[in-house]
């Protein structure tokens, strides 16, 4: 069981990554889009010159980007490139490499995603745990309907409202961006505060929406667990409330909550991408948006592959943590 568990998860990870790469490769080639020609036509329309010699230029770029080779060779090359994280050059920002652009944007997204996910998972879980606890204060029950209604809407929708209320009307927070334009990223307290100040609204949009979902699942599982015989028995033999709450109820509910985290990971990431777009937050989402607007084919392709890889990796990590939480599944020291 343990080794096969490991092998299964690893196989799943590889399968997802391979499939993502393959889909990423073949889907674009099903259509008859010619990104190089499109880009050049766009440039020509803007500049009004370089009309002559267009076909030569396309041929030259096709050679440079390897678009003139047979499909199978392109595929083999592509998979090789993916494995080396070589996502090719950005078409709109040639000669910048796609992976470098992703690298610049990644810390922003990672920071936003990690903090908001951890905060909402912990806070929502705790809230739900108390709501499912018979001896918890009653006012908590009234928090549920508003939190649940919030949970139904997309992150960015709340984000738009937050921008209006807290950035436009009250002016407590900046309207957009990751730091004030004109300042330069440096290691100083004032810059760190600047960054945090800019990230509060996007973070709130994500946390306020997702907290209700975590609270709901946690609560319903708490209610189920508290109905179990062993909890009644623990209560009857006179254990302290706190001991039962922490060691009996929460301990058992931790497992499905972790599984749930792995299940919604993809939604969290795409949701964050859209939040970044409306806040012009300098992360992967905004980069993707700019890539789409500039029809920067390789950039979009690279980001999509990178995001899928991250999701697969995070799922794998959660799957490997899971046996640590659940003593019934154990690793074999292999």
């Amino acid at each position, binding site marked *: 069981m343990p080794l096969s568990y490991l092998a299964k998860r690893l196989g799943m990870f590889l399968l997802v990554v391979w499939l993502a790469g393959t*889909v990423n490769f073949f889907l674009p080639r099903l259509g008859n889009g010619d990104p190089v020609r499109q880009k050049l036509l766009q440039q020509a329309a803007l500049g009004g010159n370089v009309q002559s010699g267009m076909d030569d230029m396309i041929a030259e770029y096709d050679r440079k980007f390897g678009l003139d080779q047979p499909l199978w060779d392109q595929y083999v090359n592509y998979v090789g490139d993916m494995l080396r994280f070589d996502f090719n050059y950005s078409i709109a920002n040639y000669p910048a490499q796609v992976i470098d652009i992703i690298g610049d944007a990644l810390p922003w997204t990672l920071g936003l995603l990690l903090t908001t996910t951890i905060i909402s998972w912990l806070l929502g879980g705790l809230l739900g745990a108390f709501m499912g606890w018979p001896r918890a204060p009653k006012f908590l029950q009234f928090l*549920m309907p508003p939190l649940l209604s919030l949970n139904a*809407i997309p992150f960015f929708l709340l984000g*738009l409202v937050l*921008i209006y209320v807290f*950035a*436009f009307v009250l002016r407590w927070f900046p*309207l957009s961006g990751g730091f004030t334009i004109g300042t330069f990223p440096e290691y100083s307290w004032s810059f760190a505060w600047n960054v945090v100040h800019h990230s509060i609204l996007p973070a709130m949009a994500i946390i306020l929406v997702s907290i209700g979902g975590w609270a709901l699942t946690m609560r319903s599982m708490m209610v189920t667990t508290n109905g179990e015989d062993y909890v009644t028995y623990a209560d009857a033999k006179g254990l302290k409330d706190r001991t039962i709450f922490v060691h009996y109820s929460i301990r058992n509910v931790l497992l499905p909550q972790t599984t749930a985290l792995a299940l919604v990971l993809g939604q969290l990431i*795409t949701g964050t991408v859209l939040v970044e777009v*409306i806040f012009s937050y300098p992360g992967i989402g905004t980069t993707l948006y700019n890539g789409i607007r500039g029809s920067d084919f390789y950039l979009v392709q690279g980001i999509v592959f990178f995001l899928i890889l991250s999701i697969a990796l995070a799922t794998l990590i959660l799957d490997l943590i899971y046996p640590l939480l659940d003593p019934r599944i154990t690793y074999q020291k292999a």
Partner: protein
Amino acid sequence: MSVAVQEGTAVKQRRRGAFAERATTIARYLGRNRSLLVGLAFLLILFLFVVIGRMIVDTSEANPLSVGSLDPPSRDLPFGSDKQGRNLFAVLVVGTPLTFRLGLIAGAIGLTVGAVVGFIAGYYGGIVDDILKVIVDVGLTIPGLLILIIIAMNTQAGLTVNQMTFSIAVLAWLYPARIVRSQVLTLKQRGYVQIARLSGMSGRKVIVRELLPNLFPYLVAALVASVSAAVLAAIGLEMLGLGPFEAPTLGMTLYWVNYNAAIINGWWWWWAPPIFIIAILFTGLFLTAVGLDELANPRLRNRV
């Protein structure tokens, strides 16, 4: 179990032919199932908004340059107009059903395909089940929006509403397939299904006569969830600038809001109504799904 009981009482009443009595039963049930009541009420509000709106506004004004640019709400233009001169009232009246229709078609296709796959995989098991399970697991790890981005990037003229609907439908079957499969796996162990199988009923008959009716409430709840997911995917795609540029869907309206920075320019009438309608739509669908879940599985009662 109690699903069967409810169906039993419904049949008895139909025999008596007392329509009013059935109506009161439903009303009484809705009184107990608040989520379903509120959810359906939200959807009804949107429906009425669209129906009444269509009667009093010229829907051709949802196109650009039909009214003045950036007019605040007034007697003539109750929701004002946007930068390109669309009457925003007309935009919402046209866009709301457009977005909902997209979700409904994509969700229905997704559910139908997903249910068929789920029934086959769950009921017959074996190698088919193994293969389908891997496909579904892999597919669900990859967010649909990312695949849709790649699809949309490669249609030169941008997607039309119908192309978008179809693209979303192609990915929408995975989740229903998973939940139907797991439900079939548990139902298969029930006594009445076992007896039907032992008495020589063909697999297709068992699925249609025994499994399908028992899973019906689940399927309806799953349909509502699929519709919601499809609308979410569509709006996400549209926000990223990959939507149908000529169509006044709710998502495209928000795209123009974002594109023209309507919020920080103080054009509140442009963004507030579509946000409100989308919020009502999602909350309505969510509460309906929760309510239907409760109908399908009465043990969840009083969860929300």
